[in-house]
């Protein structure tokens, strides 16, 4: 069933509506391993709706989603096992320690204790958080909590890492650290990264870009191509042009 050549994330003609309101309209794209794709869109563009579908918090009724070759609807557990997620809101348990939060995640993904401890050490050390593993999450600042959430999302070595506006509410140094670290991940971990944001300064020139507006993909391609197609001097102005200035 697991097709090695299959893209890490395959989204095919996905639509979603909340009653009469169409949140996503025939959205299709793929993300390959080793690729960092930025899903750029103003607030209310449909980014979080798309994430709710990819994480199967919400069932896909129109279209199909495949993760590492597994159809999310038919083989949901196998597909979800290959997915790492950092949600917009913090989902850590504030009253538990960093380590205990990560062990909880490791248990949910069926990792043995020895392997889990090794992975926790690896991922926390990469983000200079290992020494703080016994601290209660409540006592960490927003940036450090985000680091823990990224470490947690990588514990089970997923094929796809989803990040839903992970830098919202963080100060500049924390934002930069996270943006840099996540951009490295696609190559160091050889995983597919899908990063949803509305902040253009989080985009690197080498990133693939998807601009989503009112549930419709307005642009899909590289950053240089975007500038060329729109004849705009910067990503910010091209984004404004495509979304008619809505942020």
């Amino acid at each position, binding site marked *: 069933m697991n097709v090695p050549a299959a893209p890490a994330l395959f989204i095919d003609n996905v639509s979603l509506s909340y009653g009469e309101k169409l949140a996503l309209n025939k959205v299709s794209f793929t993300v390959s391993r080793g690729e960092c794709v930025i899903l750029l869109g103003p607030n209310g563009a449909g980014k979080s709706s798309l994430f*709710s579908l990819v994480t199967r*918090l919400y*069932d896909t009724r129109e279209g199909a989603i495949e993760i590492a070759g597994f159809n999310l609807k038919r083989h949901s557990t196998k597909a979800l096992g290959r997915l790492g997620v950092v949600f917009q809101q913090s989902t850590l348990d504030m009253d538990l320690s960093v380590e205990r939060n990560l062990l909880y995640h490791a248990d*949910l993904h*069926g*990792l043995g204790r020895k392997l889990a401890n090794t992975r926790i050490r690896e991922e926390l050390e990469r983000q200079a958080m290992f020494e703080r593993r016994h601290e209660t999450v409540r006592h960490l600042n927003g940036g450090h909590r985000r680091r823990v959430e990224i470490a947690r999302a990588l514990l089970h070595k997923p094929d796809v890492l989803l990040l839903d506006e992970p830098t919202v509410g963080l100060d500049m140094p924390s934002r930069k650290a996270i943006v840099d670290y996540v951009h490295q991940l696609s190559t160091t971990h050889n995983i597919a990264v899908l990063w949803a944001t509305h902040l253009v300064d989080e985009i690197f020139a080498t990133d693939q870009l998807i601009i989503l507006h009112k549930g419709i993909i307005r642009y899909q391609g590289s950053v240089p191509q975007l500038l060329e197609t729109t004849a705009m001097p910067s990503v910010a102005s091209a984004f404004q042009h495509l979304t008619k200035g809505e942020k």
Partner: protein
Amino acid sequence: MNPLHTLRALRGIVTRELLRFVHQRERFVSALVRPLVWLFIFAAGFRSTLGLSPTPPYETYILYEDYITPGLVGMIQLFNGMQSSLSMVYDREMGNMRTLLVSPLPRWFLLVAKLLAGTLVSVLQAYGFLLVAWFYDVRAPIEGYLTLLPALVLAGLMLGALGLLLSSFIEQLENFAGVMNFVIFPMFFLSTALYPLWKLQESSQLLPVLAQYNPFSQAVELIRFALYGQFNAYACAYTLAALALFLSAAVIGYNPSKGMMQKKGGKQ
């Protein structure tokens, strides 16, 4: 499902629930204080006015404190079930619930594991209350404390499943007050927790019928008989049936394609 994965996930969910319980000491204290107030104050006040004739499982006349103790144990489990429901709604609003729901395990298993974890907490609370009651001289036969365990597990599962079901319907934390008014209070007062059915029959024809069909009454009777080393087959079957019904409905409620989740506009 890989059995080892399943066991590890169950361990994770149960450990987390126990750790949260340990960290939230006030939750344990309030769970204990509530029934103790009923036992120390309410029961003391009603002791002289409420005469109780010997009815199974009691073989002699008993004090009112002895009568309401199983009901108060049931109350602990009822409130714990609702507390779990409240924390599910809170976790859903705050986002913590997502960690659980996006894990690679079937939704039904995650709900059952959560239910087992909550039941374990309610059993610990119930024994904590019975220990205090023991020192207050409200005592059951020693073997009753052992035969009580399966009854507590079953009653805890049923009431926890009811909490899960309610949490799948409640969209916002603010709506939880309605649960108190429309579920907890009617279930508790319209049951055999505080007075036997024959007492209700003296004042109304409808109330005892409603109390008899109240699943909480049957859970209390299951506990009452078990605490005295006896088995109430009808109460056990009724509680099991209610558990199956509530749990099935909760699983449907949390199913991303069938239940309330689909109606909530992606809000988890």
